């Protein structure tokens, strides 16, 4: 079964070409304030993970929820939600694919 993978929006510095997760206002490498939108493939792997069971008030109705730092192409990383299915477990190194984006950021599922 083929699954659709969401791309991830990033920003590319017009000064030096460095890629950043969005939003970015100043290029920490060259000082430029000019960026252009770019997309990267939403395929990565879990760098580390946790499941939040005590949350800030605004997120309390969502617990427990799963978070991971995901390693993406081009040496980028982001903090994202993992949509775990019944019986699935997060593991470091596990490949993940981006499936959607909403108010809490990008969501990935185990591949």
């Amino acid at each position, binding site marked *: 079964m083929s699954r659709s993978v969401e791309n991830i929006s990033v920003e590319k510095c017009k000064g030096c070409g460095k890629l950043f997760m969005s939003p970015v206002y100043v290029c920490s490498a060259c000082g430029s304030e000019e960026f252009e939108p770019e997309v990267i493939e939403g395929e990565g792997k879990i760098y580390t993970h946790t*499941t*939040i069971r*005590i949350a800030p*008030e605004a997120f309390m109705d969502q617990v427990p929820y799963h978070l991971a730092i995901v390693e993406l192409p081009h040496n980028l*990383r982001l903090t*994202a*939600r993992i949509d775990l299915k019944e019986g699935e477990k997060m593991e*470091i190194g596990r490949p993940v694919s981006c499936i959607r984006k909403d108010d809490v950021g990008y969501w990935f599922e185990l591949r």
Partner: protein
Amino acid sequence: MRSVSIIGVGTTNFGILEGMSIKEMAALACNRAILDAGIDRKEIQALYLGNYIGGILVGQETLAPVIACELGLKKSVACTKVEGACCSAGIALRQGYMLIASGVYDFVLAGGVEKMSSASTEKNTEALAAGMDKDTEGYTGLTFPGFFALVANRHMYEYGTTIEQIAMVSVKNRKNALKNPRARFRKETSLEEVLNSRLITDPLKLFDCCPISDGAAAAVLCPTEIARNFTDKPIEIIGSGHGLGHSTSYSMEGPSCAATVFAAREAFDMAGVTPSDVDVAEIHDCFTIAEIVDSEDIGFFERGKGGRAVEEGLTQVDGKIPINTSGGLLSKGHPVGATGLGQVYEIVRQLRGEHENQVKDPEIGLAMNLGATGLVSTVTIMRRI
């Protein structure tokens, strides 16, 4: 640069201080530091007061001048509130240190305070999350316990640190707190109790987390050359470092807090001593894993060996480097804006030889205070003179 010494310290107990306002706690801790120093309060030229979430939780801002009025400081005193998340008091102390070292002032009062117990756990978690980078990560629902859980899982993966070694930090610190009247928790715990406690953010459990607490602590500083006019036991600040980490957890360079690495390097270089010269340390154990990571970031142990060091007893009161003899944040509690000076209070008492859980004849002590997602850190190295 002039040498600077601590000539007086003061504190409240840490814990649930029902009925005590943020103003009362800060005023009492500061007043006790002034009385301990035996200084005429009209001599104090500046007050730096650490506080993190007083505005959000109890609606009190402009704290430093409010406290200065209560203390009866002179009208030319410069009052500044200092905020750097849970590192606020460490930074407040460093501001005072630098202004005396540079010759601007001769007498500075540094304090820190937080009132947390009047708000719910959810409200506290929300207020603490104000220290997350809202634009890039705050909206994901990551919390500070969550950040340290991310660090814990990576530390176990990279170095084979075990969940038992992590839990042993809690067992050790709870035992250390038995003798400390300032601690919120003064009851021993067992490895089984820690491991079987309720999951908060996997793999960290309730007993891996410091308790929400109220409290305040303060210190009076002056040039070392006149410190003996006030006390027989001045404690010299021989090294002071303040480092920057990352505002997003996804930028972490391994299971480590870069801010502490830089702060420690700066402080050790200034002091001309090495981690192995330190006789007693209070380091930022907001979570069990944090104490292990801190101990590696400071350089007490090689990278990845912090967990084993706890298991081997190297960080116990009679160990190679006694860590958190006060019981640490895990037992004392973590009134976030006060913690950095609470640590300094404990180290000063150790170096004076008057601590309830006294290490044998310590000469050099270290306090390390961390804020946010490892974003900001201070390291203060002190010596008995």
